């Protein structure tokens, strides 16, 4: 039977009478936890922002026809050469169309699937932007703009004009921000575009599109699907890409491979498309935890030292407590409680310090052309990190307090009493 009330009151008296050491030890924990909260909030805020930047614009599954050489060369089909070792030089890609066969029924099928949030058609056309005598190579993507807005937060990236304006303008274009800058064009101006075979069409600029990724903004513009089909001289079922957004991103991998088999089409899933991206997030997380754990280990050594010293100073108290009926366990609990109280107080103050610092960072202006929707540094306020923080504080102080308190438990009162 452990009498916690007495144990805690003894622990409290010890801590209060050694205010300086207590404050020093607590500050160590405060520092570790405060740094953890600040770092993790900022780093995950940054991760989330970069994730959103890519994830919002990236379909979970992208369906298209890949230009690649035929897997079976004609010679292999000949019965006479079966089992022979055929060498074919200078293989060229198969002449195939980029058009997705039966795109419209496929989209109906996908939109009926309960796992699918939406499947939207695209027609990607290689074109030239004409500006005086200069021709800028680029692409024009024909889209169902309202679906793009619904599924991929397109509105966040239309920095001037609107999605509706494009929908309602027959020959409208959402011009890439980099292109607009290069050609000194503005909302309401007209831009001439030329298809690969030389047909020139004027389009009215009804919006400026800025994704934040320069490589995209310098080449890509958007228009209505119908407009691009007309410019290309194609029928209304001509679609080169289908983008699928799911309710659950985890379904992307199995679904992509199923669709590939079912429709005989190339289907890339988001994990495949953003493999390197994950690595960046992971490295930021590793840095956060490495720094925080290092600080906590330093704090832990501080607590270990202070408790060891305290136990040395309190030998007489320990002997008296044991002589008057406190067990070794009671004595161990007294010193463990001191360590954990330091962890609790230092940890809670650390959470508060971390919160205040995060709030401050959240207020610091952060404006960049690359990120049109961001005005201050991104910070992620997540209760979970505060729980992890206080758990960290307890674990590190528990480990730091364990050995010294174990020593206190084993102290033989007779040796101390004899010592005088």
């Amino acid at each position, binding site marked *: 039977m452990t*009498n916690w009330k*007495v144990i805690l009151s003894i622990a409290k*008296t010890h801590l209060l009478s050694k205010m300086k050491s207590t404050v020093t030890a607590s500050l160590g924990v405060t520092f570790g936890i405060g740094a953890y909260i600040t770092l993790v909030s900022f780093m995950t805020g940054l991760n989330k922002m970069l994730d959103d930047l890519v994830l919002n614009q990236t379909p979970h599954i992208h369906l298209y026809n890949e230009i690649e050489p035929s897997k079976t060369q004609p010679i292999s089909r000949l019965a006479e050469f079966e089992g022979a070792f055929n060498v074919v030089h200078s293989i060229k890609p198969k002449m195939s169309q980029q058009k997705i066969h039966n795109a419209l029924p496929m989209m109906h099928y996908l939109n009926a699937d309960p796992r699918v949030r939406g499947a939207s058609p695209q027609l990607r056309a290689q074109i030239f932007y004409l500006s005086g005598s200069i021709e800028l190579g680029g692409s024009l993507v024909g889209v169902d703009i309202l679906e793009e807005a619904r599924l991929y937060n397109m509105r966040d990236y239309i920095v001037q004009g609107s999605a509706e304006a494009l929908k309602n303008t027959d020959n409208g274009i959402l011009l890439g921000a980099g292109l607009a800058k290069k050609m000194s064009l503005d909302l309401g101006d007209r831009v001439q575009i030329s298809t690969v075979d030389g047909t020139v069409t004027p389009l009215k600029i009804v919006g400026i599109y800025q994704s934040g990724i320069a490589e995209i903004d310098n080449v890509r513009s958007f228009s209505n699907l119908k407009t691009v089909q007309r410019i290309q001289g194609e029928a209304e079922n001509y679609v080169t890409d289908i983008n699928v957004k799911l309710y659950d991103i985890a379904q992307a991998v199995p679904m992509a491979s199923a669709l590939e088999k079912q429709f005989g089409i190339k289907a890339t899933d988001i994990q495949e498309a953003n493999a390197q991206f994950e690595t960046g997030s992971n490295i930021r997380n590793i840095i956060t935890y490495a720094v925080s754990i290092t600080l906590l280990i330093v704090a832990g050594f501080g607590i270990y030292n202070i408790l060891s010293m305290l136990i040395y100073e309190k030998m007489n108290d320990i002997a008296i407590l044991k002589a008057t*009926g*406190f*067990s070794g366990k009671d004595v161990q609990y007294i010193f463990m409680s001191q360590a954990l109280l330091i962890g609790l107080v230092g940890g809670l103050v650390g959470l508060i310090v971390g919160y205040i610092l995060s709030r401050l960072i959240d207020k610091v202006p952060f404006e960049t052309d690359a990120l049109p929707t961001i005005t201050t540094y991104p910070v992620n306020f997540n209760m979970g990190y505060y729980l992890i923080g206080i758990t960290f504080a307890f674990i590190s102080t528990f480990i730091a307090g364990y050995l010294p308190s174990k020593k206190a438990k084993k102290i033989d009162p007779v040796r*101390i009493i004899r010592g005088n």
Partner: protein
Amino acid sequence: MTAMANVLEAKHINKHFRKPVDFHVLKDINFRVARGEFASIMGKSGCGKSTLLYILSTMDTDYEGELYLNDQLVSGLPHEALSKIRNQHIGFVFQFHYLLTEFTVLENVMLPARKLGRKSTEEIEHDAMQHLKTLNIEKLARKTASRISGGEKQRVAIARALINDPDILMGDEPTGNLDSYNAENVFQIFKGLKEEKGLSLLVVTHDQDFADRTDRIIIMEDGRVLP
């Protein structure tokens, strides 16, 4: 004599110190303390009195032989159980090491009772004040233990030893560090406890005058109790 007549009984107690060399410090110790008896132990310095007292108080478990408290064998019990016995049945007063210096006098006296946990904090505080009154130091209750004189400390230690109404009070030269006035004071307190409350006492002393006025003197020589 009834079975409960003895508070304490030692049977064939032997103890060796093995370091630095083997040293047979206690040799076949046999004796009893009857209920309500005030016994004193005398003997030259180094003859083993303190060593014996640490064994009798259950703090030292490294010995051979049998120790009975209220006719119950306590030798070989686990540490947890011995702590409980010390807390409940034995009061101990040392020559040094009186008190927890950062706690008040009252807190010091209350601690063993709070550990026992049988009474509410209010009751314990009331009892502690009663003991302090009996010992004439109730005015010191709220003082920090490090701020009082040696004689006062010894009386606080006695109050603490009495807080759980022990069966026996043991003292290792409790007056050895006091002037004759304070030593006499402590003797009178012990005598009063025996006469008024029927408390059993076993006190190691160097003071012949002190020992002469106890019920019985146990004399030790070279690790033996003289007959």
